[in-house]
């Protein structure tokens, strides 16, 4: 079996204590793998650690423990190792307008990556190819423009072109379409799918939008408070969710027929992770348990194991075992 394009093993990222609050366990033990040519959607709400995890995948954040592996090789954090790594994994951010230097025109923005890595030969061709691949055609029309002259969708394409100019193998996208207009969203998502087909790119897309996962993901991982609570094929997780959190997320989408399970309260912050199952204070299944049910002590007292990266799984004490 070929090594996955990108993998996190037992990854933990903890921020030191600040001002009377404890340490923040932003990522509290994650195994996640993105296979070659695969698109994985990482779904979660704000504060669950998905953005931190995404940045660890591109080497912008050093893990407290655990490791990030690229094609089976563990990532070292010396500046040379990190710089080499950068050529193969690239990051897309949520706000495309803010992600572009207002003083740089499109050509410079796309050429930045190659210039930083010393790829000066054939720079113009590289930029031209990248712009075409990102859908900005004809490239010459865009090269001299500045970010403020472009629409949100075009800006995001420039950011994508800048990533493609380095010929990466994996793209990590943090909410790539959240701040774009609804009608433009489809284009950018289609572009990501096309890049997978034409260039064999793998992608990890971080989002809160389950519809996005339905649109482009092969596999889905759901994250809550620093841990993956469910992962598997997109069809399985989105149509037959097993974890109560996933079920709640899917039930509140407008237009679904299911009774909405509107969880009360908001996710606690990562400095105060509940004991036992971290979801149990808000869990609708836990709340429905009879007070005499012995399983309550499981939920309140026994922590769940970290899910493995290679098999679909669910982290829940109250799961009904699948038939067969």
């Amino acid at each position, binding site marked *: 079996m070929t090594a996955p394009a990108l993998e996190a093993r037992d990854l933990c990222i903890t921020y030191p204590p600040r001002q009377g609050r404890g340490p923040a366990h932003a990522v509290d033990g994650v195994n996640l793998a993105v296979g070659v040519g695969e698109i994985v959607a990482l779904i979660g*709400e704000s504060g669950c650690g998905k953005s931190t995890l995404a940045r660890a995948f591109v080497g912008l954040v050093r893990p407290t423990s655990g490791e990030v592996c690229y094609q089976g090789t563990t990532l070292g954090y010396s500046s040379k190792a990190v710089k080499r790594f950068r050529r193969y994994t690239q990051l897309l951010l949520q706000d495309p307008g803010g992600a572009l230097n207002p003083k740089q025109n499109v050509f410079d923005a796309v050429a930045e990556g190659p210039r930083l890595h010393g790829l000066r030969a054939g720079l113009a061709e590289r930029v031209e190819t990248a712009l075409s691949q990102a859908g900005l055609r004809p490239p010459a029309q865009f090269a001299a423009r500045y970010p403020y002259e472009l629409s949100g969708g075009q800006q995001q394409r420039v950011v994508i072109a800048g990533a493609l100019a380095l010929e990466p193998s994996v793209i990590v996208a943090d909410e790539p379409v959240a701040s774009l207009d609804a009608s433009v969203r489809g284009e950018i998502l289609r572009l990501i799918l096309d890049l997978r087909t034409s260039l064999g790119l793998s992608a990890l897309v971080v989002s809160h939008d389950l519809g996005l996962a339905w649109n482009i993901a092969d596999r889905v991982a759901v994250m809550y408070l620093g841990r993956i609570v469910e992962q598997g094929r997109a069809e399985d997780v989105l149509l037959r969710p097993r974890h109560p959190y996933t079920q709640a997320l899917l039930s509140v989408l407008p237009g679904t027929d299911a009774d909405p399970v509107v969880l009360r309260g908001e996710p606690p912050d990562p400095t105060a992770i509940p004991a036992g199952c971290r979801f149990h204070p808000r869990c609708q299944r836990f709340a429905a348990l009879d007070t005499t049910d012995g399983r309550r002590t499981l939920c309140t007292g026994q922590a769940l194991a970290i899910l493995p990266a290679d098999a679909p799984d669910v982290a829940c004490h109250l799961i009904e075992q699948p038939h067969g």
Partner: protein
Amino acid sequence: MREEPAARAPKALAGGPTTRPLGAVGRDTLAALLEVRDLHVTFRPDVRAVRGVSLSLDAGQTLGVAGESGSGKSTVALSLLRLLPSSAQVSGEILVAGEDVLRMNWGRLRAVRWADASIVFQGAMSALNPVRTIGEQIREPILLHDKVGTRAARERTAALLDAVGVPARRAGAYPHELSGGQRQRVMIAMALACRPNLIVADEPTTALDVIVQAQILQLVTDLVHEAKISMIMISHDLSVLADTCDALAVMYAGRIVEIGDSRAIMAEPRHPYTRALSSAFPAIGDPASRLAPSGLTGDPPDPRRIGPGCPFQPRCAEAFDDCRTRDVELWPAGSGHAACLLVLPDRARSASPTRGNLAQSGEAAS
């Protein structure tokens, strides 16, 4: 006095029947709570943000306004309380309980603002004053409008915070100490402070997570039904609006392009833009959108450069030659109205469009 809406020119929509709940026949004798007639807003020098919007709203009715950036929806919302900058040129009429907001004198306008109609602004972090506690900010309109003492105002504040699900003891907190969901609840509490008849909610859940969004929408729907307040909700998410509102208006390039009962529109959208917008957020489980994101090519039009004909034509998969030159108006379509040449009875749907666009439209799903 007031013209019967039905007596106006039959081709164009002039507010009235389509935004009223189906079957509300006897309503014509009551004055509508809100009536907007032919609103035009132009920002200097040549930005035509709103180009002729008419709609009406009855007491207790909810209207969703959908659109993207540049559609003019936020401008319409702000103009309802005359909150646009003074450099904006506004024409038309906005009648709140029969009085024209655009022509009121300053004193009357201040009385109307917040007491008759209030706004929940977009982006709760910037709409709240960061150096004042939330309790003070909720009390401010109460003290201004209701002319009661501080004690009574504090009690009302506590009741409001309770109603929106924020513990009353947090009235002394500052905005930055609250989470996004809580700040939005505070904004809603502020909007309810003076018991208005109309609330305008501008993208109330856009920056919020899915579950918090569900909580806020549930809260808003409950409060509005309980107190029989009318509501206009603005969003770019059609499905959210369809779930929460009775009527739906879709705006594009400063005009309403489709308007009618929200469920009817979601079931069978008549305007190609509405179709594209509703397919942009796919239904999970729909095999047609699995690994097939659908969207429109191009960008929303620049409000400075709107030419003749239908403004949606450059991006429309079903455009005809006529669409470039013929002016579109809101014509009857199904149970509502749509501004598209396709809905005219003389336009055969089977005629092949002159421009095949590579965007997948919602047609693939139906």
